[in-house]
């Protein structure tokens, strides 16, 4: 079973690297959205610094959403998804493998790109460590919760847009606690508020690690059979 899991994960990573699409484009999207912000609200550094944590998180959510629709859709379209359900691997673990693959190829590159974009928005130096920690904790939740939306809309034409609408509400806690962690540091509050945000974010992430595979597998079963 472990071998099947690793085989699926390795295949997804290999496909992501060869096609080059997914993760790279998400980072590009992240970058361009962040760059549009000063053009929209002006280059005032103090103002940018103030909105930086929130904007970084919102742009990161959108960038992560962008790649979700291919999570199961590609396998659905070429018939691979049928095979994935016929292996010895329970469907829940199939979802886990897909979500982990999505995080490694999309979530992680976004987190790596985030500090660079923080520079563009004049994010205060002390906000970087908590923001990075929050993003590392929070992005897996994005992949796992997103897997539910992707599974719900698999096989639906133009399901990508629908998946975004379905998933975004589930991202709200991640956004709130994620921004909270960085804001507490940037605002110069005591570490207590930031630590609390990080802990709550961790709880959300852990819950999504359970909810995502269960919900995703149930949605796939409902959609495919």
């Amino acid at each position: 079973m472990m071998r099947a899991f690793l085989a699926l994960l390795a295949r997804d990573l290999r496909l992501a690297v060869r096609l080059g699409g997914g993760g790279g484009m998400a980072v590009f999207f992240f970058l361009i959205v962040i760059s549009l912000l000063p053009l929209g609200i002006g280059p005032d550094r103090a103002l940018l610094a103030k909105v930086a944590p929130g904007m970084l998180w919102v742009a990161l959510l959108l960038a992560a959403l962008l790649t979700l629709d291919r999570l199961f859709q590609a396998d659905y379209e070429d018939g691979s998804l049928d095979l994935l359900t016929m292996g010895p691997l329970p469907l829940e673990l199939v979802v886990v493998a897909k979500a982990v693959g999505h995080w490694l190829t999309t979530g992680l590159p976004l987190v790596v790109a985030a500090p660079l974009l923080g520079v563009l928005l004049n994010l205060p130096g002390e906000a970087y460590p908590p923001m990075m920690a929050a993003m590392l904790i929070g992005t897996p939740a994005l992949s796992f919760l997103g897997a539910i939306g992707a599974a719900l809309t698999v096989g639906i034409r133009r399901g990508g847009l629908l998946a975004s609408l379905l998933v975004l509400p589930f991202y709200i806690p991640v956004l709130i606690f994620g921004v909270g962690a960085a804001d507490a540091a940037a605002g110069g509050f005591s570490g207590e508020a930031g630590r609390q945000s990080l802990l709550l974010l961790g709880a959300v992430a852990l819950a999504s690690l359970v909810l995502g595979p269960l919900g995703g597998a149930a949605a796939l079963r409902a959609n495919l059979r």
Partner: protein
Amino acid sequence: MTISELSLCARDLACERGGRLVYDGLSFSLKGGEALVLTGPNGAGKSSLLRQLAGLLDVTRGEIALEGGDPERTPGEQAHYAGHLDALKPSMSVVETVIFWRRFLGSIPQGAETALEALGLLHLADLPVAYLSAGQRRRLSLARLIAVPRPIWLLDEPTVALDAASVARLLGLMKGHLGQGGMIVAATHLDLGLEGAKTLRLGAEVAA
């Protein structure tokens, strides 16, 4: 291996698709070494029946049982399903594809040569799937049957896109599988020429 004592039974199967009853009260049983050919007009439910047997489609009524198989696994997990879609990734090479199937479907570490040899694809092993012709893709898709041993083969129009030589090759593989006590359920318009195969004609009651 006790593969010859297997038997696949469908009792009183019904299938409903989009509110329409495709078939009802369908029963058959198949023992190891036997083949069942599904015939009937389009929409009679040949593909639906194969997907139900593979566990890819919910059974509206009735049951499917595999006796003598691995009790830990569903019949679908002991079957190969080859449908209309090839389940191939253009950017993976031929040999990578087969190795993935062996690892994922069968937890078998390595080795893809036998399957590629059997389908006449060994010389294309390192080529990306994107470069293959339709017939080559089809053959690669069917290489799964050999790459991962499973007792039941569910084939939906397996000869589509295959030339005469490849059809003959496939027929040889099917006979070999039956000879080892495996079972085959195939939907086809073509007469495959499998001697002693049972035939199940679907759609007789909705022929009006």
